[in-house]
């Protein structure tokens, strides 16, 4: 990952969604992107140029656009039609983004489009996040990490975030081993990032 004077950036020659530019690089704002927040909190994930990424819950494609600056290609899955339109325009500009409109709780509907990836990134607002993670295990290469952004408020609006996180870790344990739990404060409230690796 590229840092310029403590600012996380991605290589890109022009601003895509209004982000600041810094010496010919696009500034990657930790308040807008949980991936960037994770890097600022000391848990950056390596993004080699040969990496392929599967991104569930791509939304408007803010984080996707930065990842695509680094890696070989990003498979971006999103279900909501409105953000999907933004994601499609982004994909038209970037040759290495495959935008898939699909429901992450139903991978069988887009499984025929995906290849194995070296990084699985999840940022879905579904109460069934754990189930989704397990269902996509088959697309993650051996040794590749799963980055799971647990939106505790999407699972249960009233329960304790730590309690929910423990429950999620338990639920994904048949498929993933959790190596670190990172609260994303102060960048994102009530979010926990789980750094996981696939269980063989």
């Amino acid at each position, binding site marked *: 990952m590229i840092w310029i004077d403590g600012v996380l950036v991605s290589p890109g020659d022009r601003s895509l969604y209004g982000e600041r530019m810094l010496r010919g690089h696009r500034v990657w704002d930790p308040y807008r992107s949980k991936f960037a927040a994770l890097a600022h909190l000391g848990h950056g994930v390596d993004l080699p140029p040969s990496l392929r990424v599967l991104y569930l819950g791509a939304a408007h494609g803010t984080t996707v656009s930065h990842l695509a600056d680094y890696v070989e290609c990003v498979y971006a899955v999103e279900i909501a039609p409105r953000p999907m339109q933004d994601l499609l325009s982004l994909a038209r500009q970037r040759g290495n983004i495959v*935008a*898939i409109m699909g429901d992450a709780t139903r*991978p069988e509907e887009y499984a025929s489009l995906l290849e194995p990836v070296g990084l699985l990134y999840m940022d879905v607002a579904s109460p069934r996040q754990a189930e989704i993670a397990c269902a996509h295990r088959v697309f993650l290469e051996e040794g590749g990490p799963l980055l799971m952004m647990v939106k505790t408020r999407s699972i249960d609006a009233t329960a304790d975030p730590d309690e929910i996180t423990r429950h999620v870790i338990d639920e994904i344990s048949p498929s993933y081993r959790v190596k670190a739990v990172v609260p994303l404060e102060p960048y994102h409230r009530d979010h926990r990032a789980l750094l996981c690796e696939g269980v063989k």
Partner: protein
Amino acid sequence: MKYSMQRYWFGDVTESGCTRAEGDAAALAQRISTLTAAMEGFVPLRWEQAVACGAAGDRAGYLARLREITSLLAERKIRDWYARGDTLLIQKVRMLEDLDRAANLVAERFQEWDRALHPGPRDELRDTAPRQALEQARGHAEGAQIPVISSVDGLALARAALVQEVSAGAGDILPNCTALVGGLVAARLLSAAGSLDALARLPAASLQVLGARAALFAHLRTGSPPPKHGILYQHHRVHNAPRNRRGKVARTLAARLAIAARLDRYRGTRDEEFLKQADEAVRRAGRGT
């Protein structure tokens, strides 16, 4: 494990070889939308298989082709989504809500402005409603006040036209809900639920408090009394009911609405027999017999 046939976007792959899917991007997209992978024992494709199958020349060609097809698929889904009647109706309801908010905001500011212009003593003990103050200022409005008043008039005109469209649209898309609670309330419930599918899946207890989010979360967090009604309060049977019966009326109405929403989603036509019984049940709840 035996390697069974895997169906991918570019064709079917078996142990012995690959059968390429024929046709242009549209034909491939069509084929993909009919594919449902068996996730048990699913083996993701490797792009080299697509090349071996003749679907692409190299990695760049593979990605270009795949991107063409996924874009086509997504565009088609987005088009279908916007073509559904409920999407348009929801936009109209939300526009209506915004028009009301905007008109009230402007009227309130106008009232303060007018009071600063005419600080003299006034007769009424309590404040007049902002919209009423606007009416009263019509005679003496000056300068930029005049176009401000006419812009509020314009919003009122837009609102009247939109109410007609929303009511008509609700009658089309939500015939049973509209018969129970009227077009405006039915359309607002639809907007709060997000889609007709979502509305039809809501339990009655959720329908009852739809639109009372703040009160509901206050209840869940601090244990204050739960809300009796949200959007449903706007229905005359609920807000005209005696205070001690409102909860019961709202609960009964919500129970019937949950059925009506399912009828609207899965049948789409009025069910007179159901409506008669539902109306009677709500009436009974209001009387308390």
